[in-house]
């Protein structure tokens, strides 16, 4: 299936020839990994020994895996050149003020668990810093991918968030995980890690939030195991600084009858790549994989999703919506695999983009690979602009142009916003758009 390259009336890149002005990406085939590997030794001096062997294995893997280039299909529209050219340092331990928690929360500042800023976890849940918990499941899900960035994250595995909800435990209050980056003059890199395990018939809601100031690189990996009959609602709020780099792999494995919902809300960052991978590992499971990305200025936001229907009788629903203003560049690449035995699969994918400027660009690429014959799979993509008739209608009622635009933008995003079950996050999104 070929890529659809769609945009405003501004820049035009012919199919298959997206290039930065200098054609920089193509010179990076044998890219230098030392920007990251030269931090290993210093990191180990401070790191916990718990994951020493795991780090070692991951480093070997990182060394063996080629870094992605725009020549490959999966990174065709996103160049990682800025990551290799920015000299990142390991972050220093800093303390930051933070408003008191309203619910259970785990806070990480510059990659380190901040106990003082965190709040108690709900009863019956084993949760805290990965440095303190023996989590046998760690890295089992993430190691399924051959992503060098995932291997790189594991190469720095020492701390992170761990939430284990035992069988039958139902947690009503959302648990928030906060990752903050605070560089001190020089750019820093952190490798946030989350492990969320929901046991048989367990239920939990987890908010993963990224914040920061200045120039830094967040290379996050989240592993989620949804047990048999378990219900997990996951919301990621990416509010990085507008000079941050954010690459994240959120990887989910679902047991039979499991129910998983993901809302990937991508709001900040200069260069962002959100990967979400869902694999069905049991029958009669259901996944909802939604996303909303808002980009302006020169932000580049790449959403890459993989839904792997490896087992029969599962359903996946995916809606991604993007709002691109100014010279922002969006990418949506949604893969759905339906394996040979995965009969009665029901997979829906929708991707909608609102271009608020003629200079904003979107590249979308649905990719359905279906090897079973008795399945229901649909996908659709639309790209549009604000409707002049709607704008005029609002203005004729006294609503100023700028407000009318924001109102219509919110209307576009609203069906994603409304699906987020957490009221405070809905309010936050409305505030942000309107």
């Amino acid at each position, binding site marked *: 299936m070929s890529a659809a390259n769609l945009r405003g009336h501004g820049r035009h890149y012919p199919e298959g020839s997206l290039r930065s002005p200098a054609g920089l990406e193509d010179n990076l085939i044998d890219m230098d990994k030392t920007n990251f590997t030269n931090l290993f030794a210093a990191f180990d001096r401070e790191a916990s020994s718990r994951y020493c062997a795991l780090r070692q294995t991951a480093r070997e893997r990182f060394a063996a895996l080629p870094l992605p280039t725009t020549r490959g299909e999966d990174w065709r529209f996103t160049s990682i050149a800025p990551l290799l050219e920015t000299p990142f340092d390991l972050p220093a331990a800093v303390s930051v003020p933070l408003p008191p928690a309203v619910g259970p929360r785990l806070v990480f500042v510059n990659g380190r668990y901040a106990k003082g800023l965190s709040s108690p976890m709900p009863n019956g849940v084993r949760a805290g810093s990965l440095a303190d918990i023996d989590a046998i499941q760690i890295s089992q899900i993430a190691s399924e991918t051959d992503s060098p960035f995932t291997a790189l994250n594991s190469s720095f595995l020492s701390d992170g968030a761990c939430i284990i909800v035992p069988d039958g435990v139902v947690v009503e209050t959302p648990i928030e995980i906060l990752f903050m980056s605070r560089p001190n003059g020089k750019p820093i890199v952190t490798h946030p890690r989350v492990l969320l395990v929901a046991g048989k018939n367990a239920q939990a809601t987890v908010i993963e939030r990224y914040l920061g100031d200045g120039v830094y690189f967040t290379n996050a990996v989240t592993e989620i195991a949804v047990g048999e009959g378990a219900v997990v609602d996951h919301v990621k709020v990416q509010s990085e600084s507008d000079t941050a780099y954010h690459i994240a792999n959120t990887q989910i494995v679902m047991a039979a009858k499991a129910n998983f919902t993901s809302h990937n809300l991508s709001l900040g960052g200069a260069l962002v790549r959100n990967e979400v991978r869902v694999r069905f590992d049991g029958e009669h499971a259901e996944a909802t994989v939604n996303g909303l990305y808002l980009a302006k200025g020169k932000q580049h936001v790449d959403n890459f999703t993989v839904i792997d229907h490896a087992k029969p009788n599962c359903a996946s629903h995916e809606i991604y919506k993007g709002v691109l203003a100014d010279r922002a560049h969006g990418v949506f690449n949604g893969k759905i695999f339906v394996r040979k035995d995965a009969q009665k699969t029901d997979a829906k994918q929708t991707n909608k983009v609102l271009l608020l400027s003629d200079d904003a660009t979107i590249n979308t690429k649905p990719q359905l690979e279906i090897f079973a014959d008795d399945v229901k799979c649909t996908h659709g993509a639309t790209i549009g602009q604000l409707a002049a008739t709607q704008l*005029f*209608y609002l*203005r*004729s*009622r*006294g*609503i100023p142009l700028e407000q009318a635009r924001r*109102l*219509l933008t919110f*209307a576009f995003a609203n069906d994603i916003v409304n699906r987020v079950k957490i009221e405070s996050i809905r309010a936050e999104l409305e505030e942000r758009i309107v």
Partner: protein
Amino acid sequence: MLTIHNLHAKVADKDILRGINLTVNPGEVHAIMGPNGSGKSTLAGVLTGRDAYSVTDGEVLFEGKNLLDMAPEERAGEGVFLAFQYPVEIPGVSNSYFLRASVNAVRKHRGEPELDAASFLKVVKQKMKVLHMPEDLLKRPVNEGFSGGEKKRNEIFQMAVLEPKLCILDETDSGLDIDAMKAVADGVNALRSKDRAMIVITHYQRLLDHIVPDFVHVLSQGRIVKTGGKGLALELEAHGYSGN
């Protein structure tokens, strides 16, 4: 209140309005009738600032101010309101959100404080009753899934909430059955006052049985070719637009 002088306007290089002259005083109701394509909606669009039209000559004064220089939202703030011939659907925005944004924008323009949610709701509920609007109206998205009649009533409802000085109704009666038309006419009549003027664009004189105009104008090929009292509408009904 409104003075239109020698107004010429184009759409896509086509001359549509070709020298309109019209004066509307407070308290007056003017009906504008005319065949399809004569320029009635164009006139309404030019008065409210729709950008598909370009004015090539003439001027429009609203309470002494140059209306044509104002953005659509400023005109609304000054008190000009158009009940659309084709009301626009806005999925994803509820009527209450939209109306409150609208009311407060207009109040802001007039230098009045914004209405809080409670006072807004009080005003709106009362007007809903007068116009027999469905209970769930406020929660529903603007005009989405509304029947033709509901959309037209919603226009009049918005008008009642915004209390403009000049109301322009563009074929608000078309597509309405007789009961719906009466409901709309009642709503409009309730808004008639000595300070408020109305321009009622219609194709049929039956609406004018319910909203009785002070003046009737016939628009043809972009010009007002005839002006009379309410009797003119009946004459037109009997003899057609060309039967002078």
